[in-house]
């Protein structure tokens, strides 16, 4: 078989993503490997053993790299920030000696970001040498797909027994920590390999289920550098780009790091830049509830009754900061679950007060009523001070106490009813667009509603994700944004990445999309971010719901 032909058969595709981590397939000749995968990588890529004396380190300077780094055109293609390699979609790439970067989280993420922005997203990333069960999760999270047994085999010869939470003296093998065939046979190397394979299988499962991040939150705690890498990644554009706009799984905010998750920052940012509040100049600040969406909880039922639509309801919460009632279904507002202890730590206090203060400065209310007690009231007062306004308080007792509810109701006596705003608020958050179409009717039992204009359905609301789904008629009311442009074909089924010509840069995985081509339009849901659909050459870009042929 000619060499060139062999290369064409090395290709990869990704079918599921959760943040920057992804699951997919690597095909080499007739074999298929489920990514993320660990195995005898050098046997798959002969170039790895053919290359001699070609060590490079991520920290090497540009002149050194320029002088000694020579391309051989073979896969896995070696990456270095100072070496512009030609990489094509589907290629396997390698980051030589990056195991030495794990101890330098800031550099790790800096190098990663440079390379991930440069290389097509649909490439298979091989992290050589350094993977262990304990760091597989953070490495997959960083966007690596392919691993080898070097690290675990080395642990075996060093007499260390590997588990996802660290390594132990091999004597623990007799203590029943694992019952894999390796352990049964007293074969430490086999156990270590099994431990890694199991961890990767679990990661695959988690990515496919959309619960990988929650898993990662626990896994990284083994060693501080893993936490640092996660934290640096959380603050990177890379992560913002790859974080889906919604999930239907719970958002478990079980650590102090949750408050810095891209989803939380995105919510606050959209609240402050996109969100359009209803037409009223009275706001009530309310405590959050364990049950989501809030309005289905007993306490909020009482609040809503007491308020009777005479004010805009704003819910104060950690880690999200501030959730207006009309967008309480927007991810992750209806999805998060936090450990409740009654103690608000100072990072929470700061972030919430910061968001609230900015919100109150942007949207000037005539009256802001704090129906809060305890720390929540302190935080709100702090934010009001920052915003230069004075709060009214209606809680001399616990917020759900009848006395407090009466105070709240009385404080609002004489205020006018606020017009129902659900749709305009949701549209502003999701599409960044101000929908001012008259005559729209919300039908159904909240949160299971559809929006009609006359007899035509305009939107449906998906309660599990909080996303509005526009029909073609709905899209015709949203003038700009969330468009994906395709060539002159008529989509048969989903739209693949190579078919995408252009896309609104705001598009993220999970977004509702209007597909526009010369000969057809379609509605659907983005499976990848705008950046990824433009730079990728394989994989589904948009899951199509409806297609409309244009001009015959």
């Amino acid at each position, binding site marked *: 078989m000619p060499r060139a032909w062999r290369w064409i058969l090395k290709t990869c595709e990704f079918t599921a993503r959760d943040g920057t981590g992804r699951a997919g397939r690597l095909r080499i000749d007739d074999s298929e490997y489920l990514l993320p995968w660990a195995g005898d990588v*050098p046997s798959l890529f002969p170039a790895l053993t053919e290359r001699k004396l070609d060590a490079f380190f991520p*920290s090497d300077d540009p002149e050194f790299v320029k002088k000694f780094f020579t391309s051989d055109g073979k896969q896995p293609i070696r990456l270095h920030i100072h070496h512009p390699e030609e990489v094509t979609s589907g290629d396997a790439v390698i980051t030589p000696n990056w195991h030495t970067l794990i101890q330098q989280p800031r550099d790790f993420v800096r190098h990663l970001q440079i390379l991930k922005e440069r290389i097509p997203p649909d490439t298979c990333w091989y992290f050589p*040498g350094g993977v262990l069960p304990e760091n597989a999760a953070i490495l997959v999270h960083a966007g690596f797909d392919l691993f080898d047994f070097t690290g675990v085999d080395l642990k075996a010869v060093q007499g260390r027994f590997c588990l996802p939470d660290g390594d132990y003296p091999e004597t623990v093998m007799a203590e029943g920590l694992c019952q894999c065939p390796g352990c049964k046979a007293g074969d430490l190397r086999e156990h270590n390999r099994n431990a890694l394979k199991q961890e990767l299988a679990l990661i695959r499962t988690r990515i496919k289920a959309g619960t990988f991040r929650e898993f990662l939150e626990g896994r990284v705690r083994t060693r501080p550098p893993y936490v640092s890498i996660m934290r640096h990644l959380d603050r990177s554009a890379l992560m913002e780009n790859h974080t889906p706009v919604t999930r239907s799984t719970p958002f478990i905010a079980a650590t102090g790091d949750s408050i810095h998750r891209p989803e939380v920052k995105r919510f606050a940012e959209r609240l402050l830049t996109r969100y359009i509040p209803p037409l009223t100049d009275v706001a009530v600040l309310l405590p959050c509830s364990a049950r989501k969406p809030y309005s289905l909880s007993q306490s909020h039922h009482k609040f809503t009754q007491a308020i009777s639509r005479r004010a805009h309801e704003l819910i104060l919460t950690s880690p999200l900061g501030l959730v207006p009632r009309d967008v309480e279904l927007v991810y992750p507002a209806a999805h998060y679950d936090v450990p409740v202890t009654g103690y608000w730590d100072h990072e929470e206090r700061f972030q919430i007060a910061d968001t609230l203060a900015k919100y109150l400065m942007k949207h000037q209310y005539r009256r802001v009523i704090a129906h809060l007690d305890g720390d929540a009231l302190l935080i709100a007062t702090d934010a009001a001070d920052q915003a230069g306004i004075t709060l009214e308080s209606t809680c001399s007792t616990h917020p759900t106490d009848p006395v407090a509810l009466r105070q709240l109701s009385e404080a609002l006596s004489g205020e006018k009813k606020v017009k129902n705003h659900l749709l305009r608020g949701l549209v502003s958050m999701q599409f960044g667009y101000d929908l001012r179409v008259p005559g729209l009717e919300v039908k159904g039992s909240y949160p299971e509603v559809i929006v009609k204009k006359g007899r035509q359905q305009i939107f449906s609301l998906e309660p599990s994700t909080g996303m509005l789904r526009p029909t073609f008629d709905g899209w015709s009311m949203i003038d700009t944004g969330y468009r994906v442009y395709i060539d002159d074909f008529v989509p048969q089924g989903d739209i693949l990445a190579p078919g995408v010509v252009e896309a609104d840069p705001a598009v993220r995985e999970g977004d509702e999309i209007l597909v526009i081509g010369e000969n057809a339009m379609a509605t659907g849901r983005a499976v990848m971010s705008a950046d990824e659909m433009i730079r990728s050459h394989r994989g589904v870009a948009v899951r199509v719901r409806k297609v409309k042929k244009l001009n015959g």
Partner: protein
Amino acid sequence: MKKEQKNTPIALWTGSDRVLDEILNSVTVILRSGGCSWNRCLMCQYRHERYHDLTVQELIGAMIEQIEVLATNIAEHDPKLVKIYTSGTFFDDQEVPPVVRERIADLCKGRTLTVECRGDYVDYEKVASYVDLLKNESGQGGLIIAIGLETSSDLIREKCIDKGLSFSQYITAAEDIRRAGGLVKTYLLYKPAYVSEREAYEDMVSSIKEILPYTDLISMNPCSVQRHTLVERLWRQGSYRPPYLWSVAKVLADAPVHITCDPLGGGQKRGAHNCGTCDQMILDAIREYNLNGDQELIRSVLEMSCGCKKEWEFIMEHEHPYAMPLTG
């Protein structure tokens, strides 16, 4: 810097050395000099151990002062062998002014003198006349010129050491030395930066084979992590590990000729080391072998078992240039 500069040698010690199957009592001195004019080798610390901004006269004065210390020692111990290291090239007039060289010749006449010289600085005429200077009336006295070839691989020498010397230049220099009546001693560097444990091992094996026709003596020294070097920067970030003592011993055990070896910082994190348990035993064996040339001793050390031996065997087989070093 000037205030702190001392006009005593950087180091001086006495001992024994094996030279061409003979054991000679020796004195070794490291002189602070005008400094290596190349001064780029990645692992070299002596780059910093030099005089700066001296006039030639000041340099001569400073070096002569150092040599008086050596003179005293020679008078006391009457060594057969004198080894003078200047951290560069003995025959570079910038580094060691001619008048200093002459004073040294006076001191060492009738003895064997070892000096070091970059391969591209070997000058047939200078060497030949210096050989003459060292001979006493009875024709005793000789010159050994040590060249830091480090490896016979031009790629490694350029990429991993930045030595600025080619193997062919070395061959020319060695032939010139021999023609001029000197002996050639070749330094090999075990495991510079950017090579894996196996690559380093294979490099030493082939280097020894390739220099045999040109050299009289071989000194193979494991790279160590010197302060303020590029190697140290790589080491700090986990990108460099000195060689295993197992590897060093294996080369010595299999070598076709006697090779001297001084594992600087051996057994420590910054020098060639194993796991800490077996290091001292191997170091002792190497030291003994340096003098007695008993390869069986080294071979028996390799038969020794230790918890880290499996690790070393694994590293030899599985450490690749794209994932190294795997251990610390």
